[in-house]
């Protein structure tokens, strides 16, 4: 193993291919880095000889705005792409944390799932074409620049969520949709006694919100330092007329549930929503670990309260975000004292997985991370996944050991 680690920032797909092929031949291991915003996901690589940064691969390769499709280089920050699309009245709902740093390639490779997917679809469903560099340096393209395409296997979707272990994404073609013209945020305290009724009422809304969260904790990340312990945060998007109707409907639903007071925010609604998404991976250094679980939508609040209970029994602080529309629950456990935290986290991890085997770690830079079940219990088809990895990257050159089951 080399003593000094190399960092490479290629500016083209060919440049990536050269570096990857050289490493693969020489037995060197590559860590692929985008904006480093999701470094707390997955295992740390077993070994790193070269860090391959994609941030040199930036910019728009083709902006076919009248076709509602765009081709973007993988190192482009999500925020740049989002603001370009917004200027054209378009969008793709990535909902990535820290979008000013998060890259398109990293967001896709991590399989990031945002809170608005129940309404607009998953990032994978906007991906119509890809360019990827395989471990042996092969440059492969899939799909194209049209919105419907069934020519061959859907390789692009296969790369989404593959964590860089099948290849290095260098370019992605996306279809876009019209950007909702208006947004409105609802904020309400949600005392324990109103929670169940409120969730029932919300699930029966005729006009679904584009995001709805029950949040406990995360005050610093989301509201500044103040705020009630349990609160509801809800985003409406669409035409002005639809939002007016949804507002009336929502007010009466929350009234029926006995929710005391509701604050409406129009200016800055999307920014407040983005702060919630940022909180998904907001870490307290060596004092916290954040988990994410994907129960069915209606089970999110009860999963969140179970997780709270468990954290309490370990005398850990538990903070949760329950996504009522998709069913995700984010749990951050922490302790004021990093030493005390370190002594509890492994046992907590074991107890959590005994209760919720699929829970994944999404934010941790704790030294004990290697001992946590960061991907949860391996999925049913893990053997086939291993075979796929072996066929694409037989020398385990790309992000070795980072992915599910140590792939």
């Amino acid at each position: 193993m080399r003593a000094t680690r190399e960092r490479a920032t290629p500016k083209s797909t060919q440049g990536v291919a050269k570096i990857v092929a050289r490493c693969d031949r020489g037995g060197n291991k590559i860590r692929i880095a985008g904006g480093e915003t999701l470094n707390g996901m997955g295992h740390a690589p077993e070994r790193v000889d070269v860090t391959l940064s994609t941030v040199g691969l930036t910019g728009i390769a083709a902006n076919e705005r009248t076709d509602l499709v765009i081709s973007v280089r993988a190192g482009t920050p999500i925020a740049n792409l989002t603001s370009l699309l917004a200027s054209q009245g378009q969008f793709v709902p990535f909902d990535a944390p820290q979008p000013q740093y998060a890259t398109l390639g990293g967001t896709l490779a991590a399989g990031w799932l945002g809170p608005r997917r129940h309404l607009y679809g998953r990032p994978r469903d906007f991906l119509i074409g890809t360019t990827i560099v395989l471990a042996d340096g092969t440059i492969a393209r899939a799909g194209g620049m049209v919105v419907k395409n069934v020519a061959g296997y859907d390789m692009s979707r296969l790369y989404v969520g593959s964590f860089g272990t099948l290849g290095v994404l260098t370019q992605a073609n996306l279809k876009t949709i019209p950007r909702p013209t208006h947004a409105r945020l609802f904020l309400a305290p949600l005392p324990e006694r109103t929670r169940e009724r409120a969730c029932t009422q919300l699930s029966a809304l005729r006009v679904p919100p584009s995001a709805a969260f029950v949040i406990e904790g995360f005050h610093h990340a989301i509201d500044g330092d103040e705020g009630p312990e349990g609160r509801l945060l809800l985003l409406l998007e669409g035409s002005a007329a639809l939002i007016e109707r949804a507002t009336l409907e929502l007010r009466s639903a929350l009234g029926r549930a006995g929710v005391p007071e509701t604050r409406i925010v129009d200016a800055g609604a999307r920014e407040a929503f983005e702060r919630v998404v940022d909180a998904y991976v907001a870490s307290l250094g060596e004092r916290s670990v954040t988990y994410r679980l994907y129960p069915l939508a209606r089970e999110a609040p009860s999963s969140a309260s179970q997780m709270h209970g468990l954290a309490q029994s370990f005398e850990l602080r538990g903070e949760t975000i329950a996504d009522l529309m998709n069913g995700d629950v984010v749990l951050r456990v922490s302790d004021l004292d990093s030493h005390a935290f370190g002594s509890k986290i492994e046992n907590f991890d074991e107890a959590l997985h005994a209760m919720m085997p699929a829970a994944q770690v999404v934010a941790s830079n704790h030294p004990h991370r290697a001992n946590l079940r960061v991907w949860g219990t391996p999925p049913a088809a893990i053997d086939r996944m291993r075979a796929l990895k072996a066929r694409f990257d037989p020398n385990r050159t790309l992000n070795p050991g980072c992915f599910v089951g140590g792939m």
Partner: protein
Amino acid sequence: MLRERLIEALGSDAVKTAPEDLAVYAFDAYLDGGRPSAVTLPRSTRDVCAIVKIARDCGEPIVARGAGTGLCGGAVPKVGGVVLSFARMNRVLEFDERHRRARVQPGLVNLDLTRHAASSGLFYAPDPSSQQISSLGGNIATNAGGPHCLSYGTTVNHVLGLEVVDANGEVFTTALDDAGYDLTAAMVGSEGTLGIVTSAWLRLLALPESVRVGVAAFDDIDAASEAVSAIIAAGILPTALEMMDDVITAAVEAAFHAGYPTEAAAVLLIENAGFEEDVGASEAAIQAIVTRHGARSWRSARNQAERDVLWAGRKSAAGATGRIAPNYYTQDVCVPRSRLPQALRAVGAASRANGITVGNVFHAGDGNLHPLLMYDRRDEKQVAAVVATGNEILQTAIDLGGTISGEHGIGWEKRDAMTRIYSTDDLATMARVRDVFDPARMLNPEKIFPRGVQCAEVVPP
């Protein structure tokens, strides 16, 4: 040996080997057929596993088959083998209204799922024109589309998880929210070459509260296609945006009296569905654009019955062309939506040059063309002219930056055209996935991959 073992495992009523029975399963909706060694009608996943194992032991390939409505020969046993028909696995296994999903068997007819869900206020969004007969397993195998995938997405957007029987007869499952690789996405659209889907969790959507359907009529097809490009360029995505030319509307009106204006050169069928507050505004914006592009008339359906009959006409359009010629061949290509006018002009030119009558009925909002080329199969000259025209249209789509199949699949028909849009490296990368799931190439062989890019040795391991 094969026959005996299959009968032993499944019972004699689930195995067919008589020549007249085999003939029924020799074809799908494509021109050429094949010749199966045996046809099986499994009743359960266990049956499917048994069939695959027996076929493997006997060295017979497996060709899974839904309703046989595929247009590209995907279900044709080109090199023989055991056909596995899902006609008897056609039930809704679980219906979860609360979480808006259902688990179905692959032989269930697409429309039957929507019918099943209707009383809960739900529907299954992908709606290929064949939805009254095509099966969900076949829809999954081809990643089927349909008019409404403009807004709702194709089949892959609606599959939540799969149960699959692999090439060794072993079962595995996939789920969209599982950690690890998205094997669900790998399976959908793989045309039976990576595994055999034996059940699927499918996503259901809430029925929209308001639906408006309008028909815009144009004096020439150029203006109609320019209007489509303009609607998309304005950032408006209706729920469905379909085009029919006068060849089609004449046939549809003669057969069904659906209410399309026959004096127009082309019509657009436009649906806006969603919330009352939005559909009116969306329809008004579209109406303004089509008027600016020279639409001679606009008619909105007044009620559900009128909407239904317009859609029934659209979805039966291909069948209605029987009045024009004994046979038709449907090409399926997709182009960037801004290039629709050029694409349609090229379709017209190619048909005229080859002396073929063409009718256009297609998913205009997606840029997904379906020129129907009319001919008489008994006339070799006409067959040759149709093949030439289809090929020219294929090349036009490629030249305009499009693709060789928007929603029907590659199957047997278009396998060699794959090299026109993908490099050897691109195809070899796809073949790596095949190497993992079907290294011996026993699942639906001779499909998708062009001759020469099907073997593992293309990419040294």
